[in-house]
């Protein structure tokens, strides 16, 4: 595939992702009982766009499934099928299959199980069948549209009118006193149209949709006059042209949009009956070629062309004069209401542009420099002129606030709502439910909470694990729930909110809560805690995060292998976050994840050691204290230990550990500051530093881009004065300090087993 084609395909898949999100949003709105026509249309449009795009890339599987999906949605759209919970469930399942098919087409990855596709397809077909009509789109046009070189009589194809109520009207269909004549469209495809895999049939379908939208029908005549005899016929040439008569209510714009997709490779004219057709059949030159994405969007069923749009009169060709922007008095109420409804709904669709992340990073760097340059300017002005003119001071102050604002704005550009991840969780829950035969409703809250893009992507795995666990272990079986006086359907609430510079994600289920006795018994059995250990409730709850822990009696597909919650905790910690559990036996469990808003910025403590200012992530510092000489003990090899409330932990002079001790004496002075740092497995080390200077949000910069990895250093940052400062890698420092005894050092709650 050529590079160009690859690029277009890439755009298509990006759009598929957007359409799938739109689809998911629409379907969840439907399942919440909302049956707004615009929602149904949005859902339909999403599937239709995917189908349209897929067809032009020849993605057979995708097209076939999307088509069935679309046909079944059409039943709902036209009001024949009520979107009941069961139907919506089938749609949701179909959506999962559809998104898998998209993934399959994109990555060429694992093939979707044909059985699953067939099953979902059968369910969809059942919906189609239940409305008493055959799926329409396919039957409208003969499926073999290859020019047949026999005596081919133009056959007016009978288009069965399907009543579709859009809840909208087009405001320009009835000019006062001058009812418009039927619209006549003629088109003649070039060879190029067939050469690029498009089909005149697609245009006919588009026109039919346009007619159906106004409850009309179309009459098609095929012109075979240019068709040569069979002997002279070249199979890859285009000979046929069509004349289509559309109902008068159809607007030129609607028809125009049908040709957005293929208009550059066919001649077409649009005119009202009784008017002279524009000569040469070139009324609209082939310049409407659009990027495929837009094209497929435009080929979607007629969108409410708002009367006020000025383009209506400028671009719709000859008949535009008849188009009166305002609706006639007779139909005024309907279109006005429809238009007013449609406008705000349409606006909620995401209007986005795609920007490469490096560009934003670059912008971020530049803004950081701006802040530093600004600070330097201010300090120089003060130094040069102690009695700085007031005006100068004021302009510097306003510049300062502006640069801060720019910095915040750039950070906001990187931010993304957690919606994309949260919506994916609906699927996780559906799958987990069908595997465990439980009925669980996932409620989402705060999907609009924004966090940094990098973080959004990393939330998916931990959340998946936790939700599966909640369904498998948290929510009880239906009988148990009923016995406990709960409703049969389990409830899980997934919510996100901002709290003091962090994002707080809670997963709350109304299941049985953590069975502490069982957890403790299992932990003792597995040697995670000593048999005689006395633990608080909170400590027992936290045991489920211990590596290798699982209370599940049988290993299921979902969970029970004892990897899971410890992986979750590792993942959250590696993102600089924390997990807490609250559990009430019998009424449920709440997991709270507190995460930084971004991975690009770190909440750091500025410390001085060995003459250098360094940054250590606040999240890895447990406490800080002044060393008392009587608490230290020198080991035979010269290393020191310090006792903290009875725990002996190694003491690491940070300066000499990093080879920077040239500036200060090796002996930690009495009264030096020590930071107690902890790694993921609970090992602790005391880092001796000269001074704690400040706390700051620092922007993380890679050291490895222009240099190499430095042991004990995870990255670097630029401080407010423009100087470079290193960010310490606490786990690496702990590992190198405690070495082999790493695993033995453990905190109080997990008392040693042996």
């Amino acid at each position, binding site marked *: 595939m050529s590079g160009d084609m690859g690029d277009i395909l890439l755009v298509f898949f990006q759009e598929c992702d957007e359409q799938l999100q739109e689809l998911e949003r629409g379907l969840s709105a439907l399942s919440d009982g909302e049956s707004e026509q615009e929602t149904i249309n949005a859902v339909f449009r999403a599937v239709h766009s995917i189908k349209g795009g897929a067809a032009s890339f020849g993605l057979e599987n995708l097209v076939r499934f999307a088509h069935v999906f679309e046909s079944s949605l059409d039943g709902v759209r036209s009001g024949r099928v009520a979107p009941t919970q069961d139907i919506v469930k089938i749609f949701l399942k179909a959506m999962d299959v559809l998104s898998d098919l998209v993934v399959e087409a994109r990555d060429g990855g694992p093939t979707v199980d044909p059985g699953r596709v067939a099953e979902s397809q059968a369910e969809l077909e059942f919906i189609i069948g239940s409305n008493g009509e055959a799926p329409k789109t396919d039957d409208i046009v003969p499926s073999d549209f290859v020019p047949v070189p026999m005596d081919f009589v133009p056959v007016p194809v009978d288009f069965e009118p399907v009543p579709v109520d859009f809840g909208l009207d087009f405001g320009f269909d009835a000019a006062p006193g001058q009812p418009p004549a039927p619209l006549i469209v003629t088109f003649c495809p070039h060879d190029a149209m067939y050469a690029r895999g498009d089909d005149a049939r697609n245009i006919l379908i588009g026109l039919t949709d346009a007619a159906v939208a106004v409850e009309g029908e179309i009459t098609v005549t095929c012109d075979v006059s240019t068709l040569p005899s069979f002997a002279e016929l070249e199979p890859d040439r285009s000979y046929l042209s069509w004349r289509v008569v559309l109902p008068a209510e159809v607007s030129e714009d609607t028809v125009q949009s049908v040709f957005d997709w293929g208009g550059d490779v066919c001649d077409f004219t649009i005119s009202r009956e009784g008017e002279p057709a524009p000569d040469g059949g070139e009324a609209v030159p082939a310049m409407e070629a659009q990027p495929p994405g837009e094209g497929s969007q435009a080929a979607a069923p007629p969108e409410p062309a708002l009367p006020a749009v000025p383009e209506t009169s400028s671009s719709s060709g000859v008949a535009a004069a008849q188009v009166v922007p305002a609706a006639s008095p007779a139909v005024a109420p309907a279109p006005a209401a429809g238009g007013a409804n449609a406008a705000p709904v349409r606006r909620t669709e995401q209007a986005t542009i795609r920007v490469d992340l490096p560009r934003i990073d670059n912008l*971020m*760097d*530049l803004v*950081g*420099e701006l802040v530093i340059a600004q600070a330097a300017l201010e300090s120089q002005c003060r130094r040069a002129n102690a009695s700085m003119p007031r005006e100068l001071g004021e302009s510097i102050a306003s510049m300062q606030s502006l640069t801060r604002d720019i910095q915040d704005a750039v950070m906001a550009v990187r931010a993304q709502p957690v919606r994309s991840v949260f919506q994916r969780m609906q699927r996780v829950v559906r799958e987990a439910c069908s595997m465990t035969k439980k009925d669980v409703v996932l409620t989402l809250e705060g999907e609009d909470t924004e966090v940094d893009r990098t973080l959004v992507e990393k939330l998916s795995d931990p959340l998946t694990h936790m939700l599966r666990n909640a369904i498998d272990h948290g929510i009880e079986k239906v009988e148990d729930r009923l016995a406990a006086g709960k409703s049969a359907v389990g409830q899980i609430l997934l919510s996100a909110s901002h709290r003091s510079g962090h994002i707080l994600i809670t997963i709350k289920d109304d299941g049985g809560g953590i069975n502490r006795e069982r957890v403790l018994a299992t932990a003792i059995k597995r040697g995670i805690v000593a048999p005689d250990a006395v633990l608080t409730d909170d400590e027992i709850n936290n045991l489920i995060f211990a590596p290798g822990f699982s209370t599940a009696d049988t290993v299921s597909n979902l969970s029970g292998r004892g990897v899971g919650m410890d992986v979750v905790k590792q993942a959250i910690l590696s993102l600089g976050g924390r997990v807490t559990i609250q559990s009430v036996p019998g009424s449920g469990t709440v997991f709270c994840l507190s995460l930084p808003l971004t991975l690009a910025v770190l909440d750091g403590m500025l410390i001085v050691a060995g*003459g*250098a200012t360094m940054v250590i992530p606040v999240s890895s510092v447990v406490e800080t204290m002044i060393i008392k000489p009587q608490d230290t003990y020198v080991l035979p090899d010269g290393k020191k230990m310090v006792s903290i409330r009875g725990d002996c932990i190694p003491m690491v002079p940070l300066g000499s550990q*990093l*080879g*920077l001790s040239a500036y200060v004496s090796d002996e930690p002075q009495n009264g030096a500051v020590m930071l107690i740092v902890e790694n993921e497995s609970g090992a602790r080390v005391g880092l001796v530093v000269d001074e704690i200077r400040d706390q700051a949000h620092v922007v993380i*910069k*890679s*050291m490895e*881009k*222009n*240099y*190499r*990895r*430095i*042991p*004990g*250093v995870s990255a*670097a940052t*630029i401080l407010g004065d*423009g*100087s*470079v*400062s*290193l960010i310490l890698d606490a786990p690496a420092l702990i590992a190198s300090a405690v070495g082999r005894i790493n695993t033995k050092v453990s905190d109080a709650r997990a008392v040693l087993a042996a």
Partner: protein
Amino acid sequence: MTEEEKAAESKAVKMIVFAVGDQEYCIPILSVREIRGFEKTTVLPFAPPYVCGAINLRGIILTLIDLAIYLNVPPQADNPRRVVVIVESTQGVMCGLLVDRVIDMADIQGSDIQSVSDDCSSLGGLVMIGDRMIGVLQLESVVNQLVEGAVAE
């Protein structure tokens, strides 16, 4: 420094000539991003002796190489005019070269470069401009040494 023969390329290349200690060196001018004054650096732990530390170049963190130490040349004592030549390798790795003085530019024919020893890979050869002897620095090998040093740690 040993000086021997080695083959080289043949096109004319514009080079920037600078002094380190009493010796002169040159690098292709297209690899130079900018030249700036020497400023305080942040000392890096476990760095080789020739790395003076890291600086912030408009948001990009890069390391400075003290060419005097790297090339084993006695530096000019107390030179206030030391400058940093910021260079970018073909792989996009940036670093700063701390030199005593930037002298001028010169068009150098590849055929004029007289090769020196093979084992001194950071020096591509020597070239004569008038009666001055100038070393042609192999930027790529300097930068690679900087980045790949992690293996040696």
